[in-house]
């Protein structure tokens, strides 16, 4: 299934709470991650989304509404 640019934007937005709450999940297991870990994790998530977009995006001529 193709990933649209709008879809990328939504996935990036959705990755923000996931990254923030990751720290909570680790906290429950007694691992205190520094704030920077949230940033690093968010960068990884965004990179993964962009890779998915690059792989699935249709050729540039496609307009698709």
């Amino acid at each position, binding site marked *: 299934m193709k990933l649209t*640019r709008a879809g*990328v*934007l939504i996935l*990036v937005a959705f990755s923000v709470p996931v990254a923030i709450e990751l720290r909570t999940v680790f906290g429950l297991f007694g691992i205190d991650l520094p704030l920077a870990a949230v940033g690093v994790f968010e960068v990884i998530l965004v990179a993964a989304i*962009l890779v998915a*977009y690059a792989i699935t*995006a249709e050729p*540039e*001529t496609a*307009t698709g*509404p």
Partner: protein
Amino acid sequence: MSIETTREHPERGDDPDDRPPGYVVGSGPDDVERELSHDEFDPIGTLGIILVYFVILAVMWAFMYFVEFLGRGITVVG
């Protein structure tokens, strides 16, 4: 918005008036490929999403009540 600018998209350069009317918002129905009537449609995905939500609610409620709340010092007992 780097995503929006890194790729050329023909739509961006177009004269806006060339767009089909109704494109800007409310465009969802333009892409309908098939009609699903009431009897042909089972919201199985919705059921899945809502059950995941149910589990999250139940687990977080239990955590908040028994760990965060009852686990705290100085609680009103009378």
